């Protein structure tokens, strides 16, 4: 395990997520719990964001269910390395389903950020992009600098998926920017914005 290297990675999570979401178009966004949800909210709260406050390991399968339900919309899952590690099996499920509209972005700072910045497995030997690729997700990239990020931004937006991007980001503690936390409200506002009055049962 390398306890220092991610402290000097050049990419900063808030700027990365802002760049992603500034060009989201009509994408539906799912954010994994913790810092990823705060990053997505810092870029601008939106009814078509679904930030998780729990359900660790669930961001990718939730995004998959959404992508299957809404094949004409881009679905973007933004989550962290710790959250992804808890749901690695879902990469196998995504690869098996092959949803063309699903893009997964992992913000990999090699840390469990909300619990004291303990090292995750990606600080050691584990390469999430390799796991995604070996699962059979057709396009998997790992990037760690500005040039790499710029190369993948259009792919995240448009390329036929499923796609998996592991973005190595600096380990840093940032001010919390919290989305609403009432799950029923988050669900209702998302469904209303997406489905209109059909959302009301």
């Amino acid at each position: 395990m390398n306890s220092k290297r991610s402290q000097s990675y050049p990419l900063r999570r808030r700027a990365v997520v802002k760049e992603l979401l500034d060009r989201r178009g009509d994408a539906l966004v799912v954010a994994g719990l913790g810092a990823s949800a705060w990053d997505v909210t810092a870029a601008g709260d939106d009814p078509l964001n679904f930030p998780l406050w729990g359900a660790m390991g669930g961001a990718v399968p939730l995004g998959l269910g959404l992508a299957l339900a809404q094949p004409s919309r881009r679905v973007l899952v933004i989550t962290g390395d710790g959250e992804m590690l808890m749901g690695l099996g879902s990469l196998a499920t995504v690869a098996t389903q092959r949803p063309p509209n699903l893009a997964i972005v992992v913000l990999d700072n090699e840390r469990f950020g909300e619990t004291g910045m303990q090292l995750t497995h990606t600080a050691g030997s584990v390469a999430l992009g390799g796991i995604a690729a070996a699962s059979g997700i057709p396009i998997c990239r790992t990037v760690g600098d500005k040039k790499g990020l710029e190369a993948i931004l259009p792919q995240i937006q448009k390329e036929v998926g499923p796609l998996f991007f592991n973005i190595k980001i600096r380990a840093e503690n940032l001010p919390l920017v919290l989305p609403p936390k009432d799950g029923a409200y988050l669900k209702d506002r998302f469904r209303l914005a997406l489905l209109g009055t059909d959302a009301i049962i």
Partner: protein
Amino acid sequence: MTSLAPETWPQDIYQILVDNHVRQVAYIPDIGHASLIKMCHKSNNMKTVVLTTEEEGVALLAGAWLGGDRGVLLMQSSGVGNCVNMLSLTRTCRMPLLILVTMRGEWREFNPWQVPMGQITNQVLTMAGVLTFTVSHKDRIKETVEAAAKMAFEGPVATAVLISQRILGPKTFGR
């Protein structure tokens, strides 16, 4: 053991899923669900999703509901234990979830490793906020699944039907 004559209740369940406009069928297989899974695979209106663990299905169907799709989650009783924390998602967000559980470790079980989870399946679901319906006779399966589906999608709430091992017959590995 189950007899060689084909059972009609899997067809009944399939029809209830059709009538309830279920679009996503997530499963970890069980022999008790085998013919239902086959029927769902053949349907043009259902997307079948084989999972690596049952909790994935809870999250998958939450995403489905966000996108306007109804779903069903098929598993055996051992899988219920794998879902516990993920069920917080369904409950906190007040989403529907229909789970059909085939029971193990409950009636003439051959494998003692199935018994601990089989004996607490109903309690675990209840504690997690899932409404449970146990069915011990095959003639009752249709009305029970119908009731659970209605309550899930009209709720919206999580419901589970526990299909007894008395109906399914013991698994004996030929012994």
